[in-house]
């Protein structure tokens, strides 16, 4: 499936509604990045509703890469004994957008 991307801040109730969720798949990524189907009129209307800023796939990947790199740097800076703490999870891994 082909996808499109936008950046939008999740304001809470009403950002993704039952109508939205029922009509198309919305997937969120680090950096307030949202992935939606490329061929969905409903998805395009949703991007308008949330005042999303369109991003190309390359731009979207760069946003995710920057967020993951930031999270990896935070994890690397933790004391050794805390890296094993379950709250700190595993070291964040790269995310490759479809």
């Amino acid at each position, binding site marked *: 499936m082909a996808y499109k991307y936008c950046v939008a801040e999740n304001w809470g*109730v009403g950002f993704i509604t*039952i109508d939205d969720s029922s009509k198309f798949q919305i*997937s969120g990524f680090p950096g307030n990045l949202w992935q939606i189907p490329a061929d969905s009129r409903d998805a395009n209307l949703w991007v308008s509703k949330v005042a999303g800023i369109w991003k190309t796939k390359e731009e979207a990947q760069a946003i995710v890469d920057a967020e993951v790199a930031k999270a990896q740097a935070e994890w690397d800076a933790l004391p050794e004994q*805390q890296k094993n*703490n379950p709250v700190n999870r595993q070291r964040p891994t790269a995310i490759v957008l479809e």
Partner: protein
Amino acid sequence: MSDYYGTYGQKVQYLSSDPPAPQTGQVWYNYTSATLKVRSTNATAVWTSAASIPMAISGMAFTGTQTAGIAYGGATPASPSPTTAVNNAYLHNGSTWTATGSLGTARYTISRFGTQTTAVAGSGAVGGSVTNTENFNGSTWTASGNVGTARDQGGGAGTQTAGIIAGGFNQAANTAITNVEIYNGSSWTATTSLPTRRTIYNCSGGPQTATITYGGYEGGPTGGPNSVLTQSFNGSTWTTLNNLNTVRRGSAGSGTTSSAWYAGGSTPSTSETEYYNGTSWAISTAMPTAWTSAGTGTGINGQIVGGANPSLTAQSFFWNGVGSAGTRTVTVS
């Protein structure tokens, strides 16, 4: 020809805002948004956005319902500082979060159970595992009897006067444990151990004598696998049920032996969601984001809050399974 009045016995209401508690089948016109709406049951599971909690946090405890929940404790691992446990607690009413009385002992990965006004914080971690227990009364937390075996990431279920914690991780021994204890509101008593050592964290629910636990981590001092086990407790014995479909830990979940959900998690990070119908688990609608987070509710109506994706987040989402009620906009063209 029948009309709406003839079929339903009511006129379509003309309202400035959506009714606060619409009945399934009810139809109304919202003249503010110029939309015709209907309350119906969901044919597919859906995730919808909820209000973000006031602080980005992981390892938080969360119990209650979508419209009356409480989130408490957690950790804020901000670089380059080490993990810092917090004692903050927040009430959620379905649309907003409000700060309430803080825990006496800051900690994360607490075993949680009870309701918004009768929540219990059992054990948890502040670096090492602790035994502290606190009861909530709707506004303040009061210290109660200590858990017998220190643990964090233990499963929790039941009520403030008939609770249970199961499994977890003992930091001093560096291993997941099988120990199970029941709670009467003031003290803990050891009971039948889990068949398999597991952390369980978050993924548990139901009453003390019909508890369900699932997933987690089966690791000992030299490591171990994430778990696909589902096990239930009837007050005296544990029974192993059908496995989860996917292996992960740090997932959100909650529910009962007849209706439970299980979402997200890590190693690797995933957005997969599963639903338990009392017999088996099935893959359901994926979470909007790949998260480790805290969860509450049942298999029909749940909620996740906070967590990491991979940086800490304050976002929250509602989970509504098949058969749950939801308000939809009627579209005509």
